[in-house]
């Protein structure tokens, strides 16, 4: 009876093998570790894409399996990015400021160093005082803990209030969107303590590390691949047993689950909070590769894109979410990066930078209408034809 769940779920094994093959292939082709076919900037794009796949897995757990259409998970992703960004920016500025002050005749006092860092970081918003939220920014360990704690506690409080009032369906979606918007608007303010709309920048430079970006980018790429592998396996394990049965039951008929004696609110809260933490970890890996985070990343539209990726990939199946996020975000980069050739119709030229969103919207409508199971649903069809 005690066979491992991977043996029972061949799709997990297939996914892990495919991810490993992809990672090895990219490593061999990379500039940093391999023969240099793939540029460092594209390595970063691929690494970021893996992080987006990880948050898509989280979104699939909360939406595809539990039926909670959260439009707030990108807010947790962004918060994770901010938390790691604070340490990166503080520590790097401290090194630069200390070095500059060392040039002087007398060694600087601690207070002078702190003031120097404050001036450097908060000069753009007309301040030099450290806000209270930066209290732990000098400690990597604490700030890493905050990556999970801040979004986790926010999700816990928000979820507790929403679920115990039995807010469900579209009303819950609106509520999560309101939370996301409120957070974005707060972050946009100059006195939010997080540099307003400037956000945090220079995150690609690891403090005290002289290694070139071609190597650093590979570190993050490999870390992102590992995080995706772990996150995917954990999620697959969670949904494989009775817990998976219960949350799918909640998605399909919440009342019935309640009359079976399960505390529906407790299960929803557990999934919501856990996936918020996964999203935050994905964000903490994403933004050092992106190099910059600002409040525009957190606005509700980002969370809506996330839902679109998962829908296109096929919700309720974890590999579908990964395929959706990977595929759509990569072609989105291609279209909006100006690489896609414009189409000249004679009377009008379709510029993909402008028209990509229209294409994305149309494909979302098409998937919803004609292939409700998404790209992942095609695998079922292949399986059926193969079996028949």
């Amino acid at each position: 009876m005690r066979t491992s769940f991977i043996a029972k779920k061949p799709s997990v094994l297939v996914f892990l093998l495919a991810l490993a093959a992809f990672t090895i292939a990219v490593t061999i082709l990379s500039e940093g570790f391999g023969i240099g076919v793939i540029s460092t900037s594209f390595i970063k794009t691929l690494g970021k894409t893996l992080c987006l796949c990880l948050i898509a897995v989280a979104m699939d757990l909360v939406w595809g399996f539990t039926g909670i259409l959260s439009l707030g998970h990108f807010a947790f992703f962004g918060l994770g990015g901010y938390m790691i960004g604070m340490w990166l920016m503080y520590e790097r500025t401290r090194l630069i400021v200390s070095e500059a002050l060392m040039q002087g005749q007398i060694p600087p006092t601690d207070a002078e160093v702190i003031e120097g860092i404050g001036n450097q970081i908060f000069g753009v918003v007309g301040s030099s005082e450290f806000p209270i939220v930066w209290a732990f920014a000098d400690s990597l360990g604490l700030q890493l803990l905050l990556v999970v704690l801040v979004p986790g506690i926010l999700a816990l409080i928000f979820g507790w209030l929403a679920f115990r009032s039995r807010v469900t369906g579209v009303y819950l979606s609106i509520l999560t969107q309101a939370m996301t918007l409120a957070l974005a608007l707060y972050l946009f303010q100059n006195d939010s303590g997080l540099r307003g709309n400037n956000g945090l920048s220079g995150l690609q430079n690891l403090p005290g590390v002289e290694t070139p970006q071609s190597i650093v980018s590979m570190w993050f790429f490999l870390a992102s691949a590992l995080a995706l592998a772990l996150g995917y396996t954990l999620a697959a394990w969670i949904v494989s047993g009775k817990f998976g049965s219960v949350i799918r039951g909640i998605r399909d008929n919440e009342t019935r689950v309640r009359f079976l004696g399960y505390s529906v609110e407790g299960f929803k809260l557990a999934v919501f909070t856990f996936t918020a933490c996964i999203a935050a970890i994905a964000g903490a890996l994403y933004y050092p590769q992106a190099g910059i985070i600002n409040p525009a990343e957190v606005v509700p539209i980002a969370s809506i894109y996330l839902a679109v990726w998962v829908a296109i990939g096929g919700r309720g199946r974890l590999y579908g979410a990964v395929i959706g996020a990977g595929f759509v975000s990569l072609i989105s980069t291609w279209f909006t990066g100006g690489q896609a050739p414009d189409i000249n119709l004679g009377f009008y030229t379709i510029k993909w930078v402008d028209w990509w969103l229209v294409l994305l919207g149309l494909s979302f409508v098409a998937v919803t209408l004609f292939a409700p199971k998404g790209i992942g649903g095609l695998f079922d069809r292949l399986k059926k034809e193969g079996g028949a």
Partner: protein
Amino acid sequence: MSTLLEVSGVSVSFDGFKAINNLSFQIADAELRAVIGPNGAGKTTFMDIVTGKTRPDEGRVIWGERSVSLLRMNEAQIAREGIGRKFQKPTVFENQTVRENFLMALKKDRGVLSVLLFRPSKADHEQVDALAEQVGMLAELDRLAGELSHGQKQWLEIGMLLAQEPRLLLVDEPAAGMTPEEREHTSELLVQAAKTRAVVVVEHDMEFVRRLGCKVTVLHEGAVLAEGSLDHVTSNSDVIDVYLGR
């Protein structure tokens, strides 16, 4: 026989309409009871109150030897106390297999963490097999519940209720939409279940109630109109008035 559930002086109104009006009702351990009454008599509302779905405006609902009030508990807590409910429309989890449906219903710790770590043991699988056999679904265990016929869904739901090992089973119109053979099977299941626990069956169909051969409670306008054997209540002039119109 000791009283298992005691409902006394319960009233509830929706927008001024008194759905339940000073209702009192008792049921003992291991008793089978049929509740009949015309549409709007308050049968379903009565079940809603006992299972915590609806809060009454006044009255008491007392449960078990410890005489705890059910009014302070939510649906899940009441279910864990040992009250199982079958809805009128068969509600099973259609996207999951019959086995998964049963496993979810088995009486186990319902906490988030213990559910997460739960892996069915051999004994659990045997219990599922026994339940499936009892409701005649052993051959369907690995089918999706959504593929079952209407009658099979009803039995699956009854089987899931038995898996919960409740002390009181509330069953809402189990025979609706069933063929005569299916009805017979269903009535046997309920009579069998009532040997070890209390079962309350709400039903319209007099023939089905007769087959249950148990005490009958007639509800009308949210209160008990008559109580006794089926022959006794059907000869009651008040009941005849209510059913045939005045």
